């Protein structure tokens, strides 16, 4: 019996054909991966299945029955549950409120939060999803938020779960936990559709894989009969280097030095006495589970958050007191982890976005007057050089796919002639082709003698790019590694194991 069968699904958004004649079948009780480049149409297909979008044509069968799914509540009725790529949570409400909204527990017409807490606790115990029902969403970690998303579906007694890039924001440990949960769910007889850009994950967890390319289905294969390389080829249509090679290089002079950085953050771990330095021609990786201070570190370095104490020295100059603008002037580029809100002005045209931070500088402006021709020419140049796929310069950033948004940011930041690159989660949610491209760019910068601080939750990324890796845990650097990096070891360190203990287990 097929849990889900989609037949000849078509969907277009204006000019864009998001789904073209897609046939897609998921067997009951399997974990089925859905792969494809950014913008291939994965999310669209799943949103159609879940009733968030309506297909232009095509049929949906659930458990063999043809179904009309116009709105999510109908999908929920049919036992579908969806965990979205972008979390669908209300920050200022509690975990419990987020879970029960739409299927509330009431007594005499009034909300019964006490009962809701109980039910959620039972549910979370059953599937090993630890959450605090009373906590506000804005106060909990991304990993916990992910668990809340899953609980939302389980609370609605979903039999078929759609997970749209659930691991994009998770650390390896959290990913492993999630996989445990998925296996648990599978054992329970549930069917899972799993979208990811990480081929290793696909290989590890799924039973079968379907690949989309440019809105069309390229095919479905059994996981056991394929390899990451083969999948990448299916996705991109060419061979992809999954792990870039970096040449050996001796690091140059020290460019950035931080000492005893402290930043108190009541909601996260903050920074507790952090010191390190980055040299020219070096990529220094910061590994850590989300919420251990890397975000504060990122923002403090560029001046977006104030330090309580500590010293940041750049090129021999103390820059603690400098504003963000001044720091950027010194040649510090910043690829922000919060790309949607920080990195782009979503309603600005692409070419305007490409000069953010340089809008007062020549050649884009003279005495405060913008030179549109120069800005356009520059935009065209970057689109060309960085292979940003866009219909044109006047397209707003919002209209670009995630991968291309990231490319635009990187293009802007790397083109300003920086000496130091603060790269935070540079490939989050980006497809394999784009990852390859971004990695090559960063290595290229390294070759040119730039200093790079790479903050990432991707162990593979850190391992293949970094010359040295610092592990951050609860606001402190608890280990430094160089040379060949042991994945297992790094993972344990990120989870807070002391170095000594790691050595013992290793």
């Amino acid at each position, binding site marked *: 019996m097929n849990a889900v069968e989609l037949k000849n699904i078509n969907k277009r958004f204006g000019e864009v054909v998001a789904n073209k004649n897609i046939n897609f079948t998921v067997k009951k009780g399997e974990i089925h991966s859905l792969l494809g480049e950014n913008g291939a149409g994965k999310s669209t297909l799943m949103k159609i299945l879940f009733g968030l979008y309506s297909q232009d044509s095509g049929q949906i069968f659930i458990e063999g029955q043809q179904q009309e799914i116009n709105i999510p509540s109908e999908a929920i009725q049919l036992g579908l549950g969806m965990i979205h790529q972008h979390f669908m949570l209300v920050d200022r409400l509690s975990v419990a409120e987020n879970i029960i909204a739409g299927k509330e527990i009431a007594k005499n017409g009034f*909300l019964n939060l006490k009962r809701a807490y109980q039910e959620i606790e039972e549910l979370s115990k059953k599937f090993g999803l630890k959450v605090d029902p009373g906590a506000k969403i804005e106060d909990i970690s991304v990993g916990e938020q992910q668990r809340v998303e899953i609980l939302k579906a389980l609370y*609605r007694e979903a039999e078929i779960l759609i997970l749209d890039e659930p691991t994009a924001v998770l650390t390896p440990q959290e990913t492993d936990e999630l996989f445990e949960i998925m296996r648990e769910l599978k054992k329970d007889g549930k069917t899972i559709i799993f979208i990811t850009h990480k081929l290793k994950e696909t290989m590890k967890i799924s039973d079968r894989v379907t690949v989309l390319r440019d809105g069309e289905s390229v095919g479905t294969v059994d996981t056991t009969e394929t390899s990451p390389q083969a999948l990448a080829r299916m996705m991109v249509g060419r061979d992809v280097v999954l792990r870039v090679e970096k040449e050996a290089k001796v690091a140059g002079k020290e460019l950035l030095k931080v000492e005893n950085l402290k930043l108190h953050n009541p909601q996260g771990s903050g920074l507790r006495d952090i010191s390190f330095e980055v040299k020219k021609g070096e990529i220094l990786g910061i590994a850590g589970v989300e919420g251990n201070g890397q975000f504060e570190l990122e923002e403090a370095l560029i001046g977006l958050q104030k330090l309580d104490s500590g010293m940041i020295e750049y090129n021999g100059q103390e820059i603690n007191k400098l504003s963000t603008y001044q720091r950027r002037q010194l040649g510090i580029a910043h690829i922000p982890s919060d790309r949607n809100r920080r990195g782009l002005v979503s309603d600005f045209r692409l070419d305007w976005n490409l000069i953010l931070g340089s809008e007062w500088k020549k050649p884009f402006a003279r005495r405060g007057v913008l030179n549109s021709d120069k800005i356009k020419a520059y935009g065209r140049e970057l689109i060309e050089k960085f292979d940003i796929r866009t219909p044109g310069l006047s397209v707003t950033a919002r209209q670009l796919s995630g991968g291309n948004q990231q490319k635009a940011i990187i293009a802007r930041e790397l083109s300003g002639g920086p000496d130091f690159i603060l790269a935070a989660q540079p490939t989050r949610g980006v497809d394999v082709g784009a990852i390859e491209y971004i990695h090559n760019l960063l290595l290229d910068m390294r070759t040119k003698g730039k200093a790079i601080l790479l903050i990432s939750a991707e162990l593979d990324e850190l391992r293949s790019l970094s010359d040295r890796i610092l592990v951050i845990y609860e606001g402190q650097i608890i280990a430094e590694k160089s040379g060949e990096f042991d994945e297992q070891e790094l993972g344990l360190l990120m989870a807070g194991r002391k170095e000594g203990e790691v050595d013992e287990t290793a």
Partner: protein
Amino acid sequence: MTSDILAVIFNLNTFNAALRLSIPLALGAMAGAFSERAGIINIGLEGMLLMGAFAGVFGSFVTGSAWLGVGFAAVAGILTSLIFAIFIIEFKADHVVAGVGLNILALGFTTWMMQMIWGTRGASPSVASVPAIVIYFLEDIPVIGRLLGIQSPFVYIMLAMILAGWVLMFKTPLGLRIRFTGEHPEAADSQGINVKKIKYFSLLLSGFFCGVGGAYLSLGHLSQFSRNMTAGRGYMALAANIFGQWNPLGGLAASLLFGFTDAMQMRLQGIDIGLANDLIQMLPYVLTIAVLAGAVIKSRPPAALGNHYESGE
């Protein structure tokens, strides 16, 4: 001198007046809270109040019963907000634009209708209005008696409605859905909440509150309709709603503050305190700004306020 001023400000009559002056503001603020919690910016409060005020008098004029007039007002408020809702939800009108349009339309419409019905552009004839009621057991209690013993029934209606509104918003499943919708309509949709229905409901409720608030102006406080008689109260209500953090009780508190400073201002005009009347009349506004600037609370509107969301597109 100072004692004079204090005596004028802190006396039961001032509080009483503050209560009266706050009724349309508090109801308007709650109307704002409901629509904005559902994600819809409501600049149209002024127009809804005005339509309520007009329909109240019209109803009372036609039926001869003040209470039926209030019913007319409530229905008119709901119908007005229905128009607003259709434009916003179905036609995806920009919220601010639609609100401004509604206000202009309401002013034009009520004045036009006044001319068609009563042949006057200024004020309607007097109609049966809602008289104050005396609550005997309260009347004899010293302080409360003077404050609440003899009052327009609208005072109790307003207080009851605000309380009910607060309970609805924060203690019931429906309220949770409303708040959810305004924060994250797509999430609401994904969880099986009918976003459209919720928005309609919240807006119609908003219209209902405004209708009653308007009826208070024309039938509770006065007994006639007069052109543009809301005189900016809808905007004040908007301010009260934001001041009150999108919470009906907060809105009530802010409205009471406005009402109180206004009542105080009126009384200060009566005694010579060596300040020009223009300056005294500024007091409520200056105080509001001072309180707002001094308060530590940062306004945090519903996250999806002003957005459009349509399921299935």
